């Protein structure tokens, strides 16, 4: 019965806020969690917008897109936040997104300009290891080593798909050779990032596919310098996370205001230590200490959204073939 009370209380609260317009933002689950950016972002935006910002969470980036496709034009979303550039081509194809009018100087290692999507954070994929382990300096060195790695399934995880793109972008035609070399290093393939990272922290694997910013997490939140990423000479593939305005939104002005807020300090300063990614626009206070100390890869790799979508199936086939032997 407590639930009925909760529902009644929620209804009452909604009525109290009755005059304030509601902005509905669909995002991935870890964004809205109590340990993610959601709560701080909501408070900061509501302080200025005179509105009620409501998050709706759906799994990860891929789940978010599935949800949007299921709902189609009838979706209640005004903003979809949390797709990455491996998903934006498919997202644009749905025709559900409207162009934005922002012109911002992003602090990204590559030029980024998309008529539909606005970046809010980014990171480099990397293998996290223990500082005292022998560090491979490339995929080939990793494949030649006896190191055991945990990776994520590209069909269920955005980092997993990122690794596929990483190998394909860096090695092109030779990607199948790299994968067959890596096959005996792969301890297991998990559904998502958190299971893989958990296995690594439990000491099950020597390395795990994650982000360079994982090193910043351990340094900042745990004061632990013993977990570091292995810099690879061929460069590191990037993940750029974006948000877009839904064309059928009943709050188009508010949605525009949110996108503008998203690339301002109020939002961007929350990102580094809650989402543990680089902010798309460095806030005026600068990056936290642990980030400033983070080594930057020599080369930033990324495929344009259309290309990423075009080679996805071929890259997946190569991965499946190599790891099914």
């Amino acid at each position, binding site marked *: 019965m407590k639930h009925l009370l909760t529902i009644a209380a929620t209804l009452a609260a909604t009525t109290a806020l009755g005059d304030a317009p509601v902005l509905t933002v669909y995002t991935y*689950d870890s964004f809205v*969690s109590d340990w993610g950016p959601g709560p701080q972002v909501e408070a900061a935006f509501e302080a200025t917008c005179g509105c009620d910002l409501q998050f709706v969470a759906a799994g990860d980036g891929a789940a978010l897109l599935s949800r949007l496709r299921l*709902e189609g034009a009838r979706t209640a979303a005004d903003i979809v936040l949390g797709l990455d550039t491996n998903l934006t081509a498919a997202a644009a194809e749905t025709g559900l997104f409207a162009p934005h009018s922002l012109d911002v100087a992003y602090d990204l290692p590559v030029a980024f300009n998309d008529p539909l999507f606005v970046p809010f954070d980014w990171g480099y994929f990397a293998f996290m290891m223990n500082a005292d382990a022998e560090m491979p300096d490339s995929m080939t060195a990793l494949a030649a080593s006896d190191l055991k790695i945990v990776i994520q399934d590209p*069909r*269920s995880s955005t980092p997993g798909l990122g690794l596929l793109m990483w190998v394909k972008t860096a090695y092109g035609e030779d990607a199948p050779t790299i994968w067959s070399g890596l096959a005996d290093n792969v301890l297991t393939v998990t559904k998502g990032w958190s299971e893989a990272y958990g296995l690594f922290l439990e*000491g099950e694997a020597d390395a795990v596919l994650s982000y360079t910013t994982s090193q910043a997490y351990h340094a900042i939140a745990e004061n632990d310098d013993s977990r570091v990423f292995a810099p690879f000479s061929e460069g590191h593939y990037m993940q750029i996370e974006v948000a877009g305005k839904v064309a059928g939104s009943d709050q188009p002005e508010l949605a525009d205001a949110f996108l503008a807020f998203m690339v301002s300090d109020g939002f961007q300063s929350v990102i580094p230590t809650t989402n543990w990614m680089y902010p798309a626009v460095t806030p005026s206070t600068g990056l936290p200490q642990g980030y400033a100390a983070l080594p930057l890869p020599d080369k930033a790799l990324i495929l344009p959204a259309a290309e990423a979508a075009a080679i996805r199936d071929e890259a997946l086939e190569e*991965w499946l073939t190599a*790891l099914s032997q």
Partner: protein
Amino acid sequence: MADSPVAIGRLAGPAAALFIALLIGSAFAAVLWRGGGDLSLGPSDVAALRFTVLQALASAAISVALAIPIARALARRSFPGRALLVTLLGAPFILPVIVAVLGLIAVFGRAGWANVALGAAGLPPLSIYGAHGVVLAHVFFNLPLATRLILQGWDAVPAERFRLASALGLPPRTVFAVLEWPILARIVPGAFALVFAVCLTSFAVALILGGGPRATTLELAIYEAFRFEFDLSRAASLSLIQLALASVAAALALWLVPVLPRAPGLGRAPQRFAPGGWRRIADAGIITLAAAFLLLPIAALILRGAPALLSLPAPVWQAAGTSVQIAALSTAVMLALALPMTAGIASARSGQAEAVGLLGLAASPLTIGTGWFILLHPRTDPAAWTLVITATVNAMMALPFALRTLVPAMRDVLANHARLAASLGVVGPRFWGVVALPLLRPQIGFAAGLCAALSIGDLGVVALFAAPDQATLPLQMARLMGAYRMEAAAGAALLLMVLAFTAFWVFDRWGRASA
């Protein structure tokens, strides 16, 4: 049985079965319709089908084969702490998958206890990752279920029979042929089918321990079809294959095996008559090994989670409250479905209707959730239905276990008491109140406990529907892991385990307190 006194089962039983069939059928139809109506499969789906069937067969065969000696040892030996041990041995089954896998890795993983011990003894390490790891995990989950089901069959043999066998000095071989074999013939096929169906829909286990894309199960392929390719017709096709497989298993187990009549006993507490000598030592060894296999991973989880348990962040406790409410509602829905179905099935000569119950387990939760999302979304906000849908899906998942334990007991109740009750005019609701419910109390307690525990640990459909403030404990644990907070997640895992186990214990205790 034209004069069956369980009038309630007459209409309500088929109605409950129809309700479940409709719930599954409409969800599947919705997904298929949105996908364009065609049935289609991807190239790798045949491999997924093959792996799914093989691992489910292996898991079911090993679970049941190991459960038989364990159940027999437990059934015929009495020792201090036996009741506690029997309850504890059931623990792995009610553990949430991700929690149990973490426990298994702590014991059998590369850095686990077993390998540390092997390394100290100068032996080569063993690896838990690969197809055998998937089977190992499934045996860990399902051995308790199979043991419990078989043990219930054993305990249901009238104590007088074992006493008579003992008084006549029958050799163990004859006792087996005369008393024990009939029990096994009655219980084992159903237990096998149940474990097989559980393993068919396995998802998280295969993903963490499978070692790579070789270990792709149908449920994983369904997940990919929804999330990665957004190919709804493929998702629907795979879900139908999964259902068909479970139907075949159900058909083989429930239709071909005759319902054996059971002799009436005096219902007295079982006295244990068991052979001595080396068999005594063997039984002790079997019980010790089973306890070590099933309880060490749980001990690992307790050690790992205890430091963080008391400092868990407030949202975790809040989520625990939500999970308990969902569990209570799920249990109520489950009993509302299971009791009429039990009466209906037990009055019939064969177990067709029980097969419908098994389908609830084999239907992909992701497909049911998505199907209902498609149906609800145009009409209403699906988030408002979270509680109802979650409770119903949870109830459906627990239903086959409930039926497996309720139906044989109900058959006995009807065989032993129906005629007398009918001649006294105790029929319909009065038969339920005076005869059936009190006699079925242990089985109701067990089934309710199982449903409550499974609901607490279930991540399933909630993730598809829930509003952010309706997070359940498993979801909150996943969020902690997603935010690097592995220590706190271990604490949440322990809380999850304690809650699930307490829920089971409370109901089961209530059920057994009647004797």
